[in-house]
């Protein structure tokens, strides 16, 4: 796919840094939309940044029995999410780094970050930490096959497992109605909600430890470590939304960064799509209530089923 030239690498590096910097903005927009939908005035778009800055100014408190792994994990989290951002086509499709990892490796990258988070949660040895780690792994191990099936469906249609190639194929070919893609899209949305600890599966704003999934794994973190973890969570949401956009709404993507007219179209298109998706996610979260933890397997089994149906429909009908 993309040829590795200096300009391409520089442009991709800049785009990745921009993605890392802009990711909390999407979270802020989502929270703002949620607040509006719930008739609250809302904390403003920049609240995640304020939160992160506040946390960076505090002194870190670390349990005396914490191992080096515990200190390392926040950096691993942010680094793996930044790496993922580098191989997801957000603005153009000729990504120089894309040859390094395809969509299956991307799933592995997400799995690795989840594994490290679970290890860190169990590291201190508190009850809530290991409870959160177990729940996180439960959700993760059910969501991962569904995500893989979604990628397989799109790969079957595009004849490639590389994310930029898939997005390129969908963006620059005449419109064809694929029912299998609709199935995959719904399944992906469910995986997105589960993996990012959004409402039907987990409540990101909960203060009740017994119902926590993701929050329970980071209870022991404070100050700069917590800031990094929250930042990487925002980046993870951003990454997932961008994967969804690249797979199911790829229109407006430019081909290469050196094409100014394409970029001129791609940047507003991306902002518009992110804004619409963010408000859509907020709507889903407002309409649904958090389900019991034991309903989560049913939710994710449905996601897996939909993705699998998409795959079967693709194989049988060729559509």
């Amino acid at each position: 796919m993309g040829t590795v030239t200096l300009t391409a690498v520089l442009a991709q590096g800049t785009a990745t840094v921009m993605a890392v910097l802009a990711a909390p903005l999407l979270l802020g927009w989502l929270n703002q939309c949620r607040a509006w939908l719930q008739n609250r005035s809302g904390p403003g778009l920049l609240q995640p940044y304020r939160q992160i800055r506040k946390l960076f100014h505090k002194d870190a408190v670390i349990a005396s029995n914490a191992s080096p792994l515990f200190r390392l994990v926040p950096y691993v989290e942010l680094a793996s999410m930044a790496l993922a951002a580098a191989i997801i086509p957000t603005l153009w499709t000729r990504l120089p780094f894309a040859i390094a990892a395809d969509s299956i490796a991307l799933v592995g990258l997400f799995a690795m970050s989840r594994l490290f988070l679970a290890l860190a949660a169990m590291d201190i040895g508190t009850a809530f930490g290991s409870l959160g780690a177990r729940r996180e792994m439960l959700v993760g191990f059910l969501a991962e096959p569904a995500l893989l099936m979604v990628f397989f469906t799109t790969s079957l249609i595009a004849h490639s497992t590389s994310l930029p190639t898939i997005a390129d194929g969908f963006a620059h070919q005449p419109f064809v109605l694929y029912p299998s893609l609709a199935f995959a899209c719904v399944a992906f949305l469910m995986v997105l909600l589960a993996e990012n600890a959004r409402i039907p599966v987990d409540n990101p704003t909960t203060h009740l430890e017994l119902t926590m999934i993701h929050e329970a794994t980071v209870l022991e973190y404070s100050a700069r470590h917590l800031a990094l973890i929250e930042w990487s969570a925002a980046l993870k949401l951003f990454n997932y939304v961008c994967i969804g956009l690249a797979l199911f709404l790829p229109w407006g993507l430019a081909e290469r960064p050196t094409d100014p007219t394409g970029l001129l179209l791609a940047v507003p298109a991306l902002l518009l799509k992110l804004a619409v998706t963010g408000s859509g996610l907020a709507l889903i979260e407002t309409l649904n209530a958090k389900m019991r933890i034991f309903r989560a397997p049913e939710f994710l089994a449905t996601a897996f089923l939909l993705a699998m149906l998409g795959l079967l429909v693709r194989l049988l009908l060729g559509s």
Partner: protein
Amino acid sequence: MTNLPLELINTCAALLLLLSFAMLSQRRVLTQVDLYAAQGLVLGVSILITAWNTHQPHLYYSAGLTLLLKVLVLPFILHRLIRRLDAIWETETLLNMPSVLLIGLLLVMFAFVLAQPISELATTLTRGTLGIALAVVMLAFLMMITRRKAVTQVVGFLAMENGLLFAAASTTYGMPMVVELGVGLDVLVGMFILGIFLFHIREQFESLDLSHLESLKED
């Protein structure tokens, strides 16, 4: 180059399959009836598209009959029946929903493999959808097997008929008019008889739970 009618029919087929799974995993009885009505609507639309695309006048009648019977009449009767039976808020305890869904998935695969050689023999435009039609029939079967309540079993029976009609429409562009009318009326009459059965079952056991039928002797 793109074949829009075929794509639309394939989309309808996929929607039918999705609705079957939705019925399989639905707990509320009333919602299930609504899902059945939606399935009838999708079925009618897909037959309409086939009729419009192949210029077969009798398929228009078939589509009209489907839309009238399965979107309006049968759901109306079922709604009335449920209200008369005081079963509006009735829910089912599903046994392990993920595994039922996985069994359903296996059935779909089985149906697809089974339909592959048959659909290669067919010459119609929509032959690829036979597998989905078979899968809808099997999923309706599964629904009847896993459910305890009488009303949901009736809905499962009706959904199975939907699958059969779709299979007929996709492989041979519909059955002769006489057969189709006969099947349509059969379903209507069957619905009435089953309705009467339901009242009797409730009168006898004061519940619509079919597990009561398993005990033959009165204690």
